[in-house]
């Protein structure tokens, strides 16, 4: 599973990264987590508002900090 966190480095993006890492650890799954801060790379996805969460190249959340439960749901849904 490939997870990307999109954001230029503000508090929310960093917090999202931390939450995602924790959820991945809790779930005990194999996931490659990348942080994209370059605007050109970020804009490859149809995102209008950072922070953004991309799982397996699909944008699942943008413009806010989802809770750990929500992140868990996204990941579980992506695995299916």
């Amino acid at each position, binding site marked *: 599973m490939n997870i990307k966190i999109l*954001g*230029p*480095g*503000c508090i*929310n*993006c960093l917090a999202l990264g931390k939450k995602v890492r924790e959820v991945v650890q809790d779930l005990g799954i194999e996931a490659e987590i990348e942080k994209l801060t370059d*605007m*050109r790379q*970020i*804009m490859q*996805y*149809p*995102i*209008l*508002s*950072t922070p*953004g969460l991309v799982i397996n190249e699909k*944008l*699942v*959340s*943008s*413009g*806010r900090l*989802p*809770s750990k*439960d*929500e992140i868990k*749901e*996204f990941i579980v*849904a992506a695995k299916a």
Partner: protein
Amino acid sequence: MDNAITTNMLVEVKPKKGNNALFVWLGLGLVFWVFIYYFLKRAADFISFNVLGLSPSSHLGGSVSFFLYDAPKVLMLLVLVVFGIGIIRSFFTPERTRGLLAGKKETIGNIMAASLGIVTPFCSCSACPLFIGFVEAGIPFGVTLSFLIASPMINEVALVLLYGMFGWKVALLYIGTGLVIAISAGWIIGRLKLERFIEDWVLERRNGAGVAVSDLTGMTFENRVRYGLRAVRDIVGKVWPYLLGGIAIGAVIHGYVPNGVLASFMGKGAWWSVPLAVIIGVPIYSNAAGVIPVVQALLEKGAALGTVLAFMMAVVGLSLPEVIILRRVLKWQLLAVFIGVVAVGIIITGYLFNAVL
């Protein structure tokens, strides 16, 4: 539209309480709120003068009663307004705003964009993706700028504080001038036809908007309430230390600085105080919570309202972090024009207020 994604984005997964429990608590909370708010001043004075035994005319007595009244008052107002605006914002997303603005001409577009800037939830660090996304959707450059100017400048925290401290007239004036500045600055820059100063890689993308993640229009009212409550937790939770700090400073100024001391260099007579206040304010970034209580205290001591409001708008509306981020999509010439036009708008507003109020 993928329904799984839509519902997942709406609300935290909590153990299901009945709807009724939430609304009952909400109702009780509001009643409680009104009750406490009504008795706040009396309670603050009672504690300062009767319980602590301070004298109303002493420096310490003045400062303490100011703090005990102001701090809870402002916090309570903040909670109420952030909650209310949170609910309003649950109806808007950047994607929806983009849809509303696409195809609108300038002027109408500028007015709509500035108004939407107030109600669309938006963080300054999103300035780039939003800018690019709007450009892609064919929204005129000036219109996008009106949105980007209005959004940080008209800040609900600042609004609450201004209302709580100076009354609704000043609060309305704040929104009104913020809108006027955002609309006209965006319109003016749009007319200057400076598109060639947008970074090239952004301009190359003007080939149709991608499909963005679905918007949140499917929310139930209960979800909106939760969204509002979460906004309160996030915003008030982040802001309250600055708020208390600002009020404490304000309390000290209120109690200890003699009246009229500031009139000499921040008063109406000193014509250069407005531009100076704006020049100092632009590079500073503080959230509104910290600045306004200080603003109030300065006003009490003789600073002119226009100067002080101009300072606040400069601090809150233009920030160094936001400018640094915008540099990724705008060349420095355009960035300079952007900052310049907004700054001049704020200065003019400052003079206007000083002349009129």
